[in-house]
């Protein structure tokens, strides 16, 4: 292959570029990214960055020395519109790139809430611009409503509470994080109430009201909550529109075999956008780990390795470090094996038959990692 183009210049795209060079690809390497920035780290955006304890420079994933060594052509602020594999081209807003191989790393973006509208004071959080405008808006706010009690919503609520704001989290499901099962979901929910954050579950949002700026969140049960700032955290959708008509199979992301290979030859996908072997993972570690396997298969032109990682993520909320690994089913049995939920410091495991298949820890990274290593794929 003479030219390989990476589309998406964030964690997974940068990791793929690093892997291409590390695995000996010495041809032309093009990196196309819609955002005008060099790759940056998103997790701090809902944590230290919102608190003003981290700034833009702290988010950089790469530096000038590394970029020089990568010898890549960066096309930043450039949107890819399509993929024409017949012609061997990535189509851009401002032209095309002739290419032999493609790494798709276009990630995901926030899901829009029905009735979200475009009032001022309503935010989603994915990019540095999102975080900057939200942070500035919080300076003037007193009451914040977070819609969605997933991990990002919970982190935003935690940051707002730390900033001394009055925070309500609204969750449509009867319990947040239902996938963790009743007991562990309650443990996560309790963190909100521990810190004076109101958690309203089982009520969806019907709409938002206000003139130019949001004033109220209207709930399905007819009630409403006053808000100066609303943050919508109702999940993400994989960014695949640009691939419509490319011939790729797009079902919950770009469909790939277990080695990140798509149905088109010489095209692989990695990170939040990739549905690999039936699983799409939206976590940081996955975006750093899949590229090694994807690049290996791309350069080999065959499936020579499959991804073999157990999904893992962490979340920092209310001074508690939460870590989870595994894939658990509602039928798995969960048990606290160390510490106690009441102390907000524990390790819990999920078992299927007698085998540990998942582990969750609050403030216990050491035991968490020992158990995580033992999890089966």
């Amino acid at each position, binding site marked *: 292959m003479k030219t390989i183009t990476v589309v998406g210049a964030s964690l997974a795209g940068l990791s793929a570029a*690093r892997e291409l060079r590390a695995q000996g690809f010495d041809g032309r390497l093009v990196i196309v990214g819609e955002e005008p920035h060099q790759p940056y780290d998103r997790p*701090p955006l809902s944590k230290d960055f919102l608190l003003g304890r981290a700034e833009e420079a702290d988010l950089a*994933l790469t*530096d000038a020395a590394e970029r020089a060594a990568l010898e890549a052509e960066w096309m930043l602020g450039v949107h890819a519109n399509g993929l024409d594999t017949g012609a061997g081209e990535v189509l851009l807003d401002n032209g095309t790139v002739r290419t032999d191989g493609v790494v798709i790393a276009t990630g995901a973006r926030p899901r829009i809430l029905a009735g979200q509208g475009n009032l001022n004071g309503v935010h989603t959080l994915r990019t540095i611009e999102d975080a900057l405008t939200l942070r500035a808006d919080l300076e003037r706010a007193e009451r914040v409503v977070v819609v969605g009690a997933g991990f990002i919503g919970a982190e935003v609520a935690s940051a707002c509470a730390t900033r001394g704001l009055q925070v309500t989290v609204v969750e449509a499901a009867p319990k947040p994080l239902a996938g963790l099962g009743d007991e562990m979901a309650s443990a996560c929910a309790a963190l909100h109430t521990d810190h004076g954050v109101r958690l309203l579950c089982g009520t969806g949002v019907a709409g938002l009201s206000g003139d130019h700026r949001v004033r109220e969140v209207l709930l399905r049960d007819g009630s409403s909550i006053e808000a100066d700032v609303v943050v919508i955290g109702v999940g993400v959708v994989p960014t695949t529109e640009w691939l419509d008509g490319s011939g790729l199979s797009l079902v919950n992301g770009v469909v790939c075999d277990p080695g990140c290979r798509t149905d088109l030859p010489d095209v692989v996908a990695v990170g939040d956008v990739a549905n690999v072997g039936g699983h799409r993972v939206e976590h*940081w*570690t996955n975006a*750093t780990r899949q590229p090694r396997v994807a690049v290996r298969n791309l350069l080999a032109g065959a499936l020579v390795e499959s991804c073999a990682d157990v999904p893992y993520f*962490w979340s920092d909320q209310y001074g508690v470090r939460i870590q989870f690994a595994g894939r658990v089913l509602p039928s798995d049995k969960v048990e606290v094996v160390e510490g106690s939920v009441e102390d907000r410091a524990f390790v819990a495991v999920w078992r299927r038959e007698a085998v540990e298949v998942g582990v969750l820890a609050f403030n216990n*990274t*050491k035991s*968490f*990692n*020992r158990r995580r*290593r033992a999890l089966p794929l």
Partner: protein
Amino acid sequence: MLRVCDLSELPPGESIRISESNTAVPVAVFNADGVIYAVDDTCSHQDASLSEGWLDGCFVECPLHAASFDLRTGLPTCLPAKKPVRTHQVSVVDGVIWLHQAAQDVA
């Protein structure tokens, strides 16, 4: 010098964290197969405690994003860490582990 603990309290493969009330910054002390090492406890990448990491020979893997550090030099051996952690001198005298206060910056 600061008394860390008895050598018998830190068997091979174990680690201990010395909090900042005793030193300028928290320090992690490891027993790597019988050799004692000490480095700054906070990972050079983000906020994680290396004393809670996974010890493999004289390398410790960060418990948050799996950067690995060589305890002999403090240098990272893989991403996401790019900067070293400082190392600290330790000595074992009569079965007691002692930490020397001045940290060694990596050249």
